[in-house]
C-alpha cells in the first residue's frame, strides 16, 4: 500500500486525496456544478441576455434581423401608451405594496409575538399554501365573487339591496393583487419578527416605553431588513403581474405586463416588447438596490 492511498486522519475537514489526485478532487464538484451551471446559463441567463440584444434588432418583412439600432428604445420610451402604462403600473404596484404591508404587519405581529408556538406553526403552514397554489384560479374566483351577476351582488339582491359595481376598478384590482402579495408579505414579516431579539421589546417596556414607542423605536427598526424584503417582494409581484389587471380590470388601463403580452402575441414587434421587458427589469433592479441600500445602513451601525 502506498502512502497516498492511506486514509488521511489529519485532513478531516476537507475531502480526501493528496498529491497527484488534484484532478480526482476537482472531478466531483465539476460533475455536480457543470449541469446546474449550464442549465441556468442556457435557460435563464442567455434568454435574458438575448432579450437585451433583441432590443437593438430590427424587424424587416416581419422577421427579426440583427442590427444595432436605438430606434426601438427611442420609439418605446417616447410613446405615450408606454409612458402612461409605466406611470400607471408603478402607481398600482406602489399602492399594492403599501396596502399589503399595512394589512400584513398587524397579522404578522400577532402571529410572531402573540400566538402560541403551535398556532404560529399552523399559521405559517396556512400562509405557505396560497403562495404555491394556482393564482390564475384565485383571480377567476374573485371575478365570480365581484362581477355584476356574481356572489356579492346576487347576495345583495336577496337582501333587497341595490347592486354594487365592484368589478373593473381600483378595488377589484387591489383585491386581486393582495391575493398575490398578502400571504408572502405576511410570511416574510412573521419570520422577521420571530427572528428579532425579543428581549429588546421587554427591555423597552420595562423602561416605560409606550406600545407605540416600542413599535416605532424598537420593533420596526429591528426588522428593517425584513421590511425591505417584504416591500420589494410585494412591489415585484404586483409590478409584473398580468392576471389581475387583465381579468379584474379588463386591461383598462393596460399595465406594462399587458403591453408586453399584447405586443408579443400580436406577432412581429419583438424588439419593442423586449424594450418594455428590459425597462421593467431595470426598474425592479433599481428598486431592489435602493431598498437594499436603505436597509443595509442599519446593519453596519
Amino acid at each position, binding site marked *: 500500500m502506498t502512502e497516498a492511498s492511506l*486514509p*488521511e486522519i489529519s485532513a*478531516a475537514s476537507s*475531502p480526501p486525496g493528496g498529491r497527484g489526485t488534484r484532478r480526482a478532487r476537482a472531478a*466531483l*464538484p465539476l460533475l*455536480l456544478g457543470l*449541469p*446546474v451551471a449550464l*442549465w441556468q446559463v*442556457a*435557460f*435563464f441567463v442567455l*434568454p*435574458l441576455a*438575448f*432579450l437585451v440584444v433583441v432590443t437593438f434588432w430590427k424587424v424587416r418583412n416581419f422577421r427579426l434581423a440583427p442590427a444595432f439600432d436605438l430606434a426601438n428604445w427611442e420609439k418605446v420610451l417616447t410613446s405615450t401608451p408606454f409612458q402612461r402604462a409605466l406611470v400607471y403600473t408603478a402607481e398600482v404596484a406602489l399602492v399594492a405594496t403599501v396596502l399589503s404591508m399595512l394589512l400584513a404587519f*398587524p*397579522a404578522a405581529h*400577532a*402571529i410572531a409575538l*402573540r400566538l402560541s*408556538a*403551535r398556532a404560529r*406553526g399552523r*399559521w*405559517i*403552514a396556512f400562509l*405557505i*399554501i396560497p403562495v*404555491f*397554489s*394556482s*393564482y*390564475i*384560479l*384565485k*383571480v*377567476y*374566483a*374573485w371575478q*365570480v*365573487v365581484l362581477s355584476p*351577476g*356574481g*356572489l356579492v351582488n*346576487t347576495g345583495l339582491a*336577496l337582501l333587497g339591496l341595490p347592486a354594487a359595481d365592484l368589478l373593473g376598478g381600483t378595488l377589484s384590482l387591489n383585491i386581486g393583487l393582495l*391575493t398575490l402579495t*398578502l*400571504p408572502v408579505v405576511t410570511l416574510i414579516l412573521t*419570520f422577521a419578527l420571530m427572528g428579532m431579539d425579543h428581549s429588546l421589546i421587554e427591555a423597552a417596556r420595562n423602561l416605560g416605553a409606550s406600545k407605540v414607542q416600542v413599535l416605532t423605536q424598537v420593533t420596526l427598526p429591528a426588522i428593517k431588513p425584513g421590511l425591505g424584503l417584504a416591500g420589494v417582494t410585494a412591489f*415585484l409581484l404586483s*409590478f*409584473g403581474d*398580468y392576471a389581475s389587471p387583465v381579468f379584474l380590470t379588463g386591461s383598462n388601463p393596460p399595465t406594462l*405586463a399587458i403591453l*408586453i403580452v399584447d405586443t408579443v402575441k400580436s406577432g412581429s414587434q419583438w424588439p419593442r416588447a423586449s424594450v418594455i*421587458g428590459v425597462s*421593467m427589469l431595470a426598474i425592479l433592479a433599481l428598486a431592489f438596490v435602493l431598498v437594499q441600500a436603505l436597509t443595509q445602513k442599519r446593519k453596519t451601525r
Partner: protein
Amino acid sequence: MTGRILRNLYLAALALFIAMPMLVIVVFSFDANRFPALPWGGFTLNWHREALADAMILSAMKNSVIVSLGTAVLATVLGFSAAYLDYRYMFFGKRPLMLAVAVPPAVPVTILGMAMLAALSRTPMFGTPAGIIVCHVAIAVSFSMALIRLRLGELGPDLEAAAWNLGASPLAALWHVVIPFCKPSLIAAFCLSAAVSFDEFMVAWFVGGVNETLPVRVLNLLQGQVNPKINAIGTLVLAISLILVTLAQRFARLGGAGKETA
C-alpha cells in the same frame, strides 16, 4: 380583553380573505347554477363530469402531469447539486452561479416567458412539454436548492469527515452519508418543484404553443365565455397543489423550524 378579541377577529378576517377564492372555487364546482350565484342552485357533479369528458382538459391534464413530474425530478437533482456545491466548496464563480440559481423566481414571469420564448423559438423544444420543462426547471431549482441547503446546514461537519477518514471517497461519502441525510428535504424539494411547475401559467403559455398545461387551459377558458367547468378543474388543481405543498412542508418541517426559533 378587547385587544385579544380584536386581534383574533383581524386574523380571522385575513384567513377568510386568503381562503375565500379557493373556497369559492371548490364550493361552486358542486353548484347546479351555470354561473356561480346566490342562492345556491343545488348539488351537482355535472361540471366535474363534463370537465373530465373534455378532451382538451384531459390533454392539458396529461401535459401538466408530465411537465410537473419532469420538472420535479430535474429541479431536485440540480437543486441538490447547487446546494451541496454551496455547502461544501469554495470556487471561482460561485457567487454568480448561486445567483443564477436563486434569482429566477424574482423575475416577473411575463418577462421570463417572453425571454424563454425568444430563446426557444428557434429550437425543436418550442411548443413541446420538454420545452416547458426546461424553463420550469430553471425557475423551480431556486426553491429546491433553498430547501436542501437548509437541511445541509444541519449536517454537522463531522459526519462527512468521519466517512472520509474511514476511507470513503468524496463520492461514496456523498452517496452514503449526505444524500440519506438530505432525504426529507429532497422529497420536499421534489413536491415543491412539482407544485411550482403545476401552477405556473405565463411561461407555459408562451413556451408551450399548442401544448397547453392545466393552468394555461384555465387561462384560455377565462378568455372565453363563462364556463362552469373552470370550477371543476380548479377544484382538482387546488387539491393537487394543496397535497404537494403540504407534503413539502411536512418533509421540510417548515412549521417545526418555526417553533425552534421561538
